[in-house]
């Protein structure tokens, strides 16, 4: 058993509480990603699991064992740091073997494990080099190697890819996913990059200001965000938010006008109407579909090859982001009619929580 259980975990520095009682269960063999904006406490939470930060209140258990007072070395976990934290004065081989030597493991066993890890990560020819002679990607491999030789119950990653260039990041992401499939060990991974989160995770935990906003599979977070924060945080580019007013005929949206709502909808107040860029339809002349339409002017075009994003300024001045086919030609300044379908959208109440209007029908 190597699941991790957080029970009402609190962290404060003096009077300043930065983690506000987090409950979280990490299943055995799961790849859990903690994601959130800078300063949301995700790294602190990881460091508390690692044993590098003390826990102010609550309990953390790894497997069946409460580890609040267990030193980091005895938690049977390993961690990959954002800065890699390789020992600069040791060769790659010594870097890999250092932790095993501290465990008083026999020399032959250490040599065997180092050789295995080097083979998995293809760093065999680097073993006699010092860290300063390695490129960023190679350092990253060594850092990962240092954690797999330990054969821990739990892997922790603290933004391990953020120092790599874009191409290498994608490559290492794929390798990490492969490593996870191969080892099947529980992994907890911190990142602020939601693409990393979406591609790697079995489940994602979205954190904000020391609180868990939502836990779920990438599919669930994208399609059923539980609040406005998660809705706009997950998904790139961001979900469009339009402030609508509920009246007796349904929902009144600026620019788009009236749409009807099911009977379960609130009868008054404001609703944040969220719609992702790919959920708009661009209306060709004559063929009006969808529940509401509006015409606006293209102010900016982002061409990405496989897809295209249009920034469209609607009559009210509100700018919406629309995904379009990259095979069609658009010009800035062009007028374009957009239509939207009510059941594809996300609805959030005045308290920013999701109103599940159409969830069962999707």
């Amino acid at each position, binding site marked *: 058993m190597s699941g991790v259980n957080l029970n009402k975990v609190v962290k404060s520095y003096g009077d300043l509480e930065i983690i506000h009682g987090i409950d979280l269960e990490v299943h055995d063999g799961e790849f859990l990603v903690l994601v959130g904006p800078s300063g949301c406490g995700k790294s602190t939470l990881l460091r508390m699991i*690692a*044993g*590098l930060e003390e826990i102010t209140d609550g309990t953390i258990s790894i497997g069946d064992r409460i580890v609040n007072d267990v*030193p*980091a*070395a005895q938690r049977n*976990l*390993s*961690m990959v*740091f*954002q*800065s*890699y*934290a*390789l*020992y*600069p*004065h040791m060769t790659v081989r010594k870097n890999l073997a*250092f*932790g095993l030597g*501290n*465990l008083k493991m026999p020399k032959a066993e250490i040599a065997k494990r180092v050789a295995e890890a080097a083979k998995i990560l293809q760093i065999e020819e680097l073993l006699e080099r*010092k*860290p*300063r002679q390695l490129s*960023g990607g190679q*350092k990253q491999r060594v850092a990962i190697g*240092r954690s797999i030789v330990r054969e821990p119950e739990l892997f922790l990653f603290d933004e391990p890819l953020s*120092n790599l260039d874009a191409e290498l990041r994608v490559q290492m992401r794929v390798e990490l996913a492969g490593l996870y499939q191969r080892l099947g060990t529980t992994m907890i991974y911190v990142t602020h990059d939601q693409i990393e989160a979406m591609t790697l995770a079995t489940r994602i935990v979205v954190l904000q200001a020391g609180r868990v906003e939502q836990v779920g599979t990438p599919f669930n977070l994208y399609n059923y965000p539980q609040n406005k924060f998660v809705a706009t945080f997950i998904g790139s580019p961001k979900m469009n938010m339009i402030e609508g007013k509920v009246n007796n005929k349904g929902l009144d949206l600026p620019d788009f006008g009236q749409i009807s709502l099911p009977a379960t909808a609130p009868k008054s107040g404001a609703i944040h109407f969220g719609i992702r860029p790919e959920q708009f339809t661009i209306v060709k002349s004559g063929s009006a579909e969808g529940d509401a339409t509006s015409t606006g002017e293209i102010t900016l075009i982002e061409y990405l090859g496989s897809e295209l994003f249009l920034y469209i300024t609607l009559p009210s001045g509100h700018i919406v982001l629309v995904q379009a086919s990259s095979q069609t030609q658009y010009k800035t300044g062009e007028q374009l009619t957009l239509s939207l379908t009510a059941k594809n959208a996300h609805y959030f109440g005045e308290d920013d929580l999701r109103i599940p209007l159409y969830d069962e029908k999707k």
Partner: protein
Amino acid sequence: MTDLSIQEASDIARSYRIIRDKRKRRATITKHLFLAICSLVMVYPLIWMIVSSVKPDNEIFGNISLWPSEFIWQNYPDGWEGLFLSFTVFYKNSIIVTVLAVIGNTLSCSFAAYAFARLEFKGKNIFFALMMMTLMIPYHVVLIPQYLLFLKIGWVNTFLPLIVPRFLAGDAFFIFLMVQFFRQLPRDLDEAAMIDGCSPFKIYWAVILPLSLPALATTAIFTFIWTWEDFLGPLIYLNDIRDYTVPLALRNFISQDSVSMFGQLFAMSILSIVPIFIFFIFFQKFIIRGIATSGLK
């Protein structure tokens, strides 16, 4: 409108270039001349001492010329055996005191510095402030209380007062130097080592110390120089000529009631510089090498 041919234009350019080069050369010569004179002023006492060590005694203060009328190389062997005891004894004493002081200072100061830089304990800031305050107290102020203390425990007339304090992290200057150095080492390394199963001592020993060679080398060099040429400490605590260190022994060449042997004094002074010179040459490369050890991103 005048048109220049290519030939004329290149001639003008060349003459400008020649003038510019000439000016540059003159500036370089002036600069080097100035620096040479300055360094001559700086090393003159050393040159004077070297020359005096091979001059006949009556020429040292009597003759203005640097060049000796005859070279008395005999000053060296005579000086070595010139006192009541051979310089072999004084060198042995100096080496014992200095080597132990260097070991003691580098170990104990780095130990204390590690605690200040990395560990959390009650009263850390107060202790640090107290330590820094000792930097501001002149040595001569604590001299007498310290002497009385060592007299009471019966250490006067032994090497202990010169050695034991070095093992107790008594040198705030070096502690401060190393605290600053340790603080700029990334904490991620400590944490990685912690996860790799290191105790705080093991982190200090296996991670921090090997990465701090520049600070350790600086401490070792300065401790060596300051201890080797220390005159006041040995003068106060060592009374028996058999315990004398080299600087104390040198003083014995100057005698109040008989003829001072200045030639031999300078010969031995020259020899007393040699260990410092060798030690510096050997350790200064660590200062340079340490700078290139950053293994992070």
